[in-house]
């Protein structure tokens, strides 16, 4: 099986990196090729990396609560860059207020993310979904 390529990064002005580091380790253990952009990554950086590496998915982390601002318009920009239908996941503390996981999920799905993960999601759970979504 050819390994699939995943771009990861913590979006916007967000510097919280530890969870993203764990995600990278577990993805690599599961055989994915990980292009890890680290923290404080723009939408443009994520898209450019996905285009350059012909990535199969982009996994966006956001911990500091301003994810809705930072992710706005991301799917449209992916489409413009020729990444139509690329698998997009987002996870973390995605809004600053105490909204339910369901409300947050529908907000980010409306933005074009395929899956939306609340805090305390173990990377292994997301990877089960990722394998399904990538036909593995």
């Amino acid at each position: 099986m050819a390994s699939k390529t995943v771009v990861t990064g913590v979006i916007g002005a967000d510097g919280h990196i530890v969870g993203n580091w764990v995600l990278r380790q577990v993805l690599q253990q599961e055989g994915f090729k990980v292009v890890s952009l680290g923290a404080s990554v723009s939408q443009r950086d994520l898209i450019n990396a996905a285009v350059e590496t012909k990535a199969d998915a982009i996994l966006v982390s956001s911990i500091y609560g301003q994810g809705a601002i930072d992710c706005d318009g991301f799917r449209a920009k992916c489409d413009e860059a020729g990444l139509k239908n690329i698998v997009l996941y987002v996870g973390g503390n995605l809004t600053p207020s105490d909204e339910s996981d369901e409300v947050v999920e529908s907000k980010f799905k409306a933005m074009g993310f395929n899956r939306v993960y609340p805090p305390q999601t173990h990377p292994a759970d997301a990877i089960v979904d990722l394998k399904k979504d990538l036909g593995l």
Partner: protein
Amino acid sequence: MAWKNEIGLKNKKWTKEEFFAARKEVLGRWPTGKEIEDLDAAVAFQKGLADEKVYAKAMAKAKKEDRVLIEIGVGVADIDKQIAHMKALEEAGADSFLIQADTYTRRAMYKEAQAGRDGSLTDGKSRLNGFPHVTYGTKACRKISDAINRPIRCVGAADQMPQLSAEIGFASGFTCNSAYDLHSLAQHCKDYPLDKQIQNAQYLNWLAGYYTAHGAPIELNLYGGVHGWSPPSTMSAMVVLHGILLAEQGGKHVSAGSGMMCNVLQDAARLRVDSELLQEYWKRYGYNDMVLSSMTWPWMGDWPKDVFQNAGLTALSVVTAVLGGANWIYVKSTMEAGSVPNEQANIAGLNVAKQVIRTMGSQKLHDHKEFLVEKEMMKKEARAIIERTIELGDGDVAIGVVKAVEQGVIDVPFSPWIGFKGEVVPVRDSTGALRYLKTANLPFDKEIIEWNREKIAEREKRQNRKADLEMIIADMTERSMPIVPKKRSASR
């Protein structure tokens, strides 16, 4: 990536001319800077604050009365809601406040902060993760210090380019600010140059020194605790090195802050180590009349969603801080795992903390055998880093810190900042204390390396597993899980 000292940085007190020349540019970074061109008027405003609103004075009073202060954080985009929230907490017993600035403000992204503030007011709900005090400006922010009868700290210096943030904060009547430079890069920044950041901190500390010298004492919080995996002795070394730089610029009132790693003995030892080493090095460098307090910041790793599990972590942090002799304690809300806290969640956290403090009284760790060993070894490790840094700078700490980072003498694991070598690896021993699994280029002798190895080996033997990546990942992900694990499921 290597970072060089490209701007001729030195640990030398700025002249008045250098400061005011730089100030012109700083105040021009956002229109609200125009409101505070007259620095002496700003100092006079601060000087006129009632004692109960001044951090340094409240600290002195609390120490005399043997009280431990509890600080609570509030940060929302709407200033009226910010004031209402703080008022409710004041009435619930909070001793002081942290105004948590939003990340855009902390990163000097003032255009984005303004857009976030304006959008939040339109929506009726905060889009930002904090209070955009630079957007509001001093005239508006003085409404906060007018309304609140407790000291206020403004974390606008938490990330990069803190100068305008600190200027507006101090002029608004906020009497405490964060004073760290390398630490702020380590915690939240990506690629901001270290030499420029140390220079930025010199500005901030000179400004605080100016206020202080003119009768309006500013408390400077020197904090070390990047996240939940910050090796205490590396953090301690960074605090001490920053403390030398701060004192050179005229800062006098210092609260040394440590982040809890959740081992009681190690965290309590850290409080003492920072205080003792700061006083030792200030004396060595000839900085007299320093007024030192100590504070703690709670666990900076993953927090449980369940409010009672959360309360358990808060209680542990407060017990540790009291045992270690902290003068003030920052307390998180019961919503820490999810979002910016509301009033009820902040009051819940406050009550947990106050109950612990009331019950513990004046209990402190003194001659506990393992506590003393922890202190001694932490001091040895921190001193090794400090001394090598001083050596690299030929006695100049500013030059030394830049070289030390370049060579991996100071290396913070799991940092978003690309300036570190990133080769040090920490792991917990069987008591949960953080030890060095890989010391890389840290200037540790055989005794220190062996001591860390033995502590890790104890855990390996006890748990019949190797200290490796698997162990680290498990430790990072299991602490905040529900007590009875739910069946794992995918997203809906």
